[in-house]
């Protein structure tokens, strides 16, 4: 079985699966259960300043969207940071860490945007023996209205400033958690790096309204007839998170900055994808909230099996392996020509490929007597829509035309790699002449 031990910015954990700062990590009881279940690390739910804790709503905190059979696909929440007294949290963190020295225990922090507040909280957590801190610059609801959370995360200058304060007043490793509610994720990551962050973690949740009650005309989750945007998470946000992780991993300004990947990680496969795109480990919340802590067992066994099959001896062999293959559109090979091919033996004759192609694409699939569906290579632009709508796995595949072959659609010969930057239709190429 592959060794899953992970060293993330000097913090060791027996596996790369951490629980994200969120409701599952709000108190000792839950965190002990998580460690007993096998989680490699925990980011304790965000602590605020000393004083009266924040209060939460007393109605629903979560909204959801579902797939078939009520499979939870997306969750949103309007819960705030911990609503328990600071001293209680600190006492519990210390108690847990004492009993689980081999696990990573990170403390998430969010205090007002002034140096004294940060200095104070950092001193208070010092003797918990926690392994590091994570700065919550991502929470998009409630706290943002008070100038914290994503209100900081949306201003790169603030990120840099606060990160500097943290590094100045603490020797603990510092992870900056980023909000996705921003147009270019690289800017806050660069700011964190400038401020001295040891790593970034992303994504925090996405501003969202999960649904609207069409009888009461209130957004969900609804509190006394009203609703507010909450933070969206779960499987539905994974593609957005993967892209943002990749953008930071491949940007020359942030390349090499350790990343803790967050966003819809539900299975070992999701985790492996984040890691391939540059995440040194992953953080999980919604999957645990949906199925309980036991899911980590599948993540551990799955990732081990995959690494064994690939011959990876450490998670470092996997981390970042897909990053060189993430590029800009303009560098994609325009001489890579494929055609859809329908395996007639596998085809169940539902005709979805035909409807999709005929109605919404390129009229490149013929429907023949007996419900036989065939691709017309002279019309197929290889868009892949038929592959995506086909209910049968691997029934429709994209077949690459070899170099030298003539594309029946364009009557051109498949040549060597060539991209948009040198394409005759590119105005900037002509301007350069």
């Amino acid at each position, binding site marked *: 079985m592959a060794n899953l031990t992970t060293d993330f910015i000097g913090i060791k954990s027996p596996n790369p699966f951490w629980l994200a700062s969120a409701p599952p990590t709000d108190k000792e009881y839950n965190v002990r259960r998580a460690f007993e279940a096998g989680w490699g690390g925990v980011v304790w739910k965000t602590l605020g300043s000393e004083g009266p804790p924040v209060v939460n709503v007393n109605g629903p905190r979560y909204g959801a969207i579902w797939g078939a059979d009520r499979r939870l696909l997306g969750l949103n929440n309007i819960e705030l940071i911990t609503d328990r007294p600071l001293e209680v949290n600190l006492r519990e963190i210390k108690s847990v860490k004492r009993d689980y020295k081999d696990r990573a225990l990170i403390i998430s922090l969010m205090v007002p945007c002034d140096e004294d507040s940060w200095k104070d909280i950092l001193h208070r957590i010092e003797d918990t023996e926690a392994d590091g801190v994570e700065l919550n610059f991502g929470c998009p609801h409630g706290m943002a209205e008070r100038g914290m959370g994503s209100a900081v995360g949306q201003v790169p200058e603030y990120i840099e400033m606060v990160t500097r304060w943290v590094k100045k007043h603490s020797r603990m490793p510092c992870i900056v958690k980023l909000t996705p509610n921003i147009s270019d994720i690289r800017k806050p990551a660069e700011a964190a790096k400038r401020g001295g962050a040891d790593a970034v973690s992303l994504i925090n949740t996405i501003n969202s309204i999960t649904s609207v009650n069409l009888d009461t005309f209130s957004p969900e989750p609804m509190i006394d007839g009203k609703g507010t945007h909450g933070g969206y998470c779960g499987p539905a946000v994974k593609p957005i998170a993967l892209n943002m992780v990749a953008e930071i991993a491949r940007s020359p300004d942030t390349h090499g900055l350790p990343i803790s990947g967050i966003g819809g990680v539900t299975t070992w496969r999701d985790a492996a994808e984040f890691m391939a795109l540059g995440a040194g480990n992953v953080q999980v919340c919604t999957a645990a909230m949906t199925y309980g802590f036991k899911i980590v067992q599948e993540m551990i066994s799955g990732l081990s099996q995959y690494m064994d099959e690939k011959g990876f001896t450490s998670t470092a062999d996997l981390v970042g392996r897909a990053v060189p293959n993430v590029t800009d559109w303009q560098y994609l090979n325009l001489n890579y020509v494929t055609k859809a091919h329908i395996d007639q033996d596998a085809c169940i*004759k*539902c*005709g*979805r490929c*035909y409807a999709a192609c005929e109605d919404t694409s390129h009229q490149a699939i013929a429907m023949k007597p007996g*419900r036989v569906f065939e691709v017309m290579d002279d019309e197929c632009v290889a868009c892949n829509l038929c592959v995506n709508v086909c209910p*049968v796995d691997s029934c429709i595949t994209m077949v690459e035309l070899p170099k030298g072959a003539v594309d029946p659609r364009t009557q051109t010969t498949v040549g060597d790699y060539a991209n948009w930057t040198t394409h005759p239709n590119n105005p900037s190429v002509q301007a350069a002449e």
Partner: protein
Amino acid sequence: MTHSPLTPGIVSGRLPADRIAANFADHTPPLDAHEAHVAADRCYFCHDAPCITACPTSIDIPLFIRQIATGTPEAAATTIWTQNILGGMCARVCPTETLCEEACVREVAEGKPVEIGRLQRFATDTAMAKGLHPFARAASTGKTVAVVGAGPAGLSCAHRLAMHGHDVVVYERRAKAGGLNEYGIASYKSTGDFAQKEVEWLLRIGGITVQTGVELGRDVTLDALLARHDAVFLGIGLGGVNALRAEGEDRAGVANAVDFIADLRQTADLTKLPVGRDVVVIGGGMTAVDAAVQSKLLGAENVTIVYRRGQEKMSASGYEQEHATSAGVRIICNAAPVAVHGNGAVREVEFGYMADTPEGLKATGETFRLKADQVFKAIGQTLAGAPEGAVLEGGKIAALPARVWAGGDCTAGGEDLTVTAVAQGRDAAEQINIFLRG
């Protein structure tokens, strides 16, 4: 309980009341809302869907399933009823395993089709429970049409004619409307007096008068109907029953399966309905299966279906055959009745083994006897009481005089299924409407 399955002769109360009640409960229980949602989600929304083609009434199945999936079963019911006004009953009695569900691409792919029949029932039951009848009559045309027979074909025709603004009088020879839906469907397929509820629901369109106890040829002639109405639709079904043509057929204890099935439906307390200890059902169709299974459910000890050809030739579907055998019914194939033995009442039936040759069925000469105190004949129904002027083909109506149309089991063409009768009644109504509007 005074009797048991072992009591000789034809007696009632072989099983306690609670067992009888359980045996005759809904054979395929309705889906609840969540089950329907999950089942609906399995539909691929095929292009030019094969299930629609396979449905004799051409219901837009992918559309109604999508309407269920999006939380509007009422709209789904409208989609169903627009094509098949008896969609509620068809959802219960259609042999979906040989129609829409056989054609479902998921049957082809996984051997597990989308549960179209049960979803159709979910939609129609939901809408009926809400009291919805999403059809209204067009302005009155002043024309009147006689519909003979209040079975699936006649009711379907009547509803469509009423919708087009014509006034309809339905003449029904029996005491209740519904035809085979009321008298010919196994009890566990149509529980809770559904057939009558559906008729009442259908008549809410208005403009339809039902006269029961009126039989064509006995109480009224076609000429009289033509004199009274602008057009006539015949949905008279198959009123006759084929004879065994075996010696001793008239012994006590030998009955028509269709009559037994009708009795089952019309008996309020099934513990009072007598059944034999050793029941033999002769035939290979759905009527045979329905009679055999229900005999077993009433408490008969031994029930045997005997069919003269090979099992693959049985018109009861594989699903129905399995339903019978799982209920404890034995099926013997390639045997035809030779004689019914007994002293007054039947005691044994003698069968001869048959060989299916290119020249037809031939007796092999080998015979056997089955113990029997009750025998049900289920070897097919025949057209009875076809009016003068009707041209028959293969014993069924193929052509009719002017201003007369026909549909359902009495006509040639199409299988003898409820859903086929509904389609034919509906289509005849459309033709009549065109004729009446000249």
